[in-house]
């Protein structure tokens, strides 16, 4: 979306995070996170391992309540919704988890139909037609009677995407969509994400550490490091950033860390590691 920047200046964000902070014991996981995501854009949240990006995603999904700060999605604080409003909120979002999170006891078709079965009064035939349509969208037509165990890694992710799409969500969240996939399959999935955004006009939030994938699909990128947002900007802005930590991430340079063995063992015995 080339006009993403223009939109950011004029439109109310569909996702608005303000002052998000969270701790795990004494350890601060996210600190003063502010983030705006606008309707129709693809926002990539990028960072190394342990940067807090998956944690941030879990907060956006409403799986945890933050210690401080607010998350407004569709104009409402998702942590102050009552049970009925939460269900309504979750009908409007779709999530593709890192490992797919398909239910192994069900076939692919049953997995895709599950949200329909739980939230609509559609008859079985209509649900079958709808699930087939979504499987066609992700190029998995004809696989509906297989179980997740019979699919490859890429197929599992696409089946999970079909399930995420079945309620026609307004926002799609992806957790590490390319993780564990070979470059060709990962590139296919990236194209699928781009096509979906264009065809269905959905807002997409992708959490990833894969630079190639991030630069290919992102309208804007938020770089997260040790729980802080280093910057949010377009692909070019991130590429040209002079921030040394961002450059380290982009050039995959590990920071030199001197580990004191005695200190590490001491922390280990105290249960801090």
């Amino acid at each position, binding site marked *: 979306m080339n006009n993403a920047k223009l939109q950011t200046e004029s439109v109310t964000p569909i996702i608005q995070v303000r002052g998000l902070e969270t701790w795990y014991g004494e350890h601060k996981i996210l600190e003063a996170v502010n983030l705006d995501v606008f309707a129709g854009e693809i926002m990539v949240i990028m960072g190394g391992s342990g940067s807090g990006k998956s944690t941030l995603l879990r907060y956006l999904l409403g799986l945890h309540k933050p210690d401080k700060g607010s998350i407004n999605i569709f104009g409402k604080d998702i942590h102050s919704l009552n049970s009925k409003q939460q269900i309504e909120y*979750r009908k409007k979002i779709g999530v593709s988890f890192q490992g797919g999170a398909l239910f192994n006891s069900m076939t692919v078709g049953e997995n895709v139909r599950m949200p329909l079965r739980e939230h609509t009064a559609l008859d079985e035939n209509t649900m079958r037609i709808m699930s087939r349509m979504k499987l066609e969208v992700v190029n998995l037509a004809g696989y509906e009677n297989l179980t997740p165990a019979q699919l490859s890694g890429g197929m599992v992710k696409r089946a999970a995407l079909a399930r995420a799409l079945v309620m026609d969500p307004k926002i799609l969240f992806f957790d590490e969509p390319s993780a564990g996939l070979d470059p060709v399959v990962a590139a296919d999935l990236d194209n699928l994400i781009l096509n979906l955004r264009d065809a269905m006009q959905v807002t997409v939030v992708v959490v990833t550490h894969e630079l190639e994938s991030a630069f290919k699909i992102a309208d804007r990128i938020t770089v997260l490091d040790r729980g802080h947002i280093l910057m949010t900007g377009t692909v070019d802005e991130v590429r040209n950033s002079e921030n040394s930590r961002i450059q380290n991430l982009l050039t995959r340079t590990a920071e030199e860390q001197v580990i004191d063995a005695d200190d590490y063992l001491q922390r280990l015995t105290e249960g801090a590691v």
Partner: protein
Amino acid sequence: MPVNQQASLMRPAIEMLGRKFVETIQNVGYSAALFAESLFWIVCGRWFHQKVQISAVFEEMMNIGVKAAPIVAILAFANGAMMAIQGIYTLEDFGAQSQIIPAVAMSVTREFGVLITSIVVAGRSGAAIAARIGTMNMAQEIDALRVMGIAPVRYLVSPVLLAMLVVMPMLTILADVMAILGGGVITGMELHIAMPVYIDRVLLALAPFDIAQGLIKSLVFGTLIALVATSNGFSATGGAEGLGKATTRSVVMCIAAIVIADMIFTFFLTL
């Protein structure tokens, strides 16, 4: 040994005891919350468009009840036969062998029928339920349920609880019948009492409360198994090793809870 040294040796043990006590209280609290939420979805799910799926309840009934029926029947039959053998041997000294019939009938219906059933269900279904929910937890399937707007307790716990409440009394009745039959076979062989006569005397010896006592216990034990197994599944972490530990813990805790609850019940209902 100096007093200071003794105190420093005891400190870790006391700390561990304290931690275990707090952990136990937390587990009981968590199970109670699970029970309350599960009942909430059974009763109020319809109003939130989240009613407990009857097909899921039937599936659980099949797994917990129907598939366990053969092993419950065999073990109960063997248990009844053993009770008759030991009883006849013991009562022989008093010349009261014929009293074995009311003894088997009452102890089976009040105690051993439900106990055998519960232990089999705890070992079989308690472990399977904990393993299934634990695996789902680790594979983010429970997160997937939540983000799809499906309450995990309504989807995973309520059907198990309802199925337990239906099948446990049925399995207990099966166990009672089979154990009494097992006792009848041995009584026939040792005391030459014909089966119709044996059954008549069993029916004479039993009061409705004897049977009701076992059935009430079966409802309580079924609830305990459902809650202990599901709570262990939800708290499973740490990959395959953690899953193995959660499954083992589930079976051990189920059986411990059943035996302790049985003791308390027996005390209040019998004495």
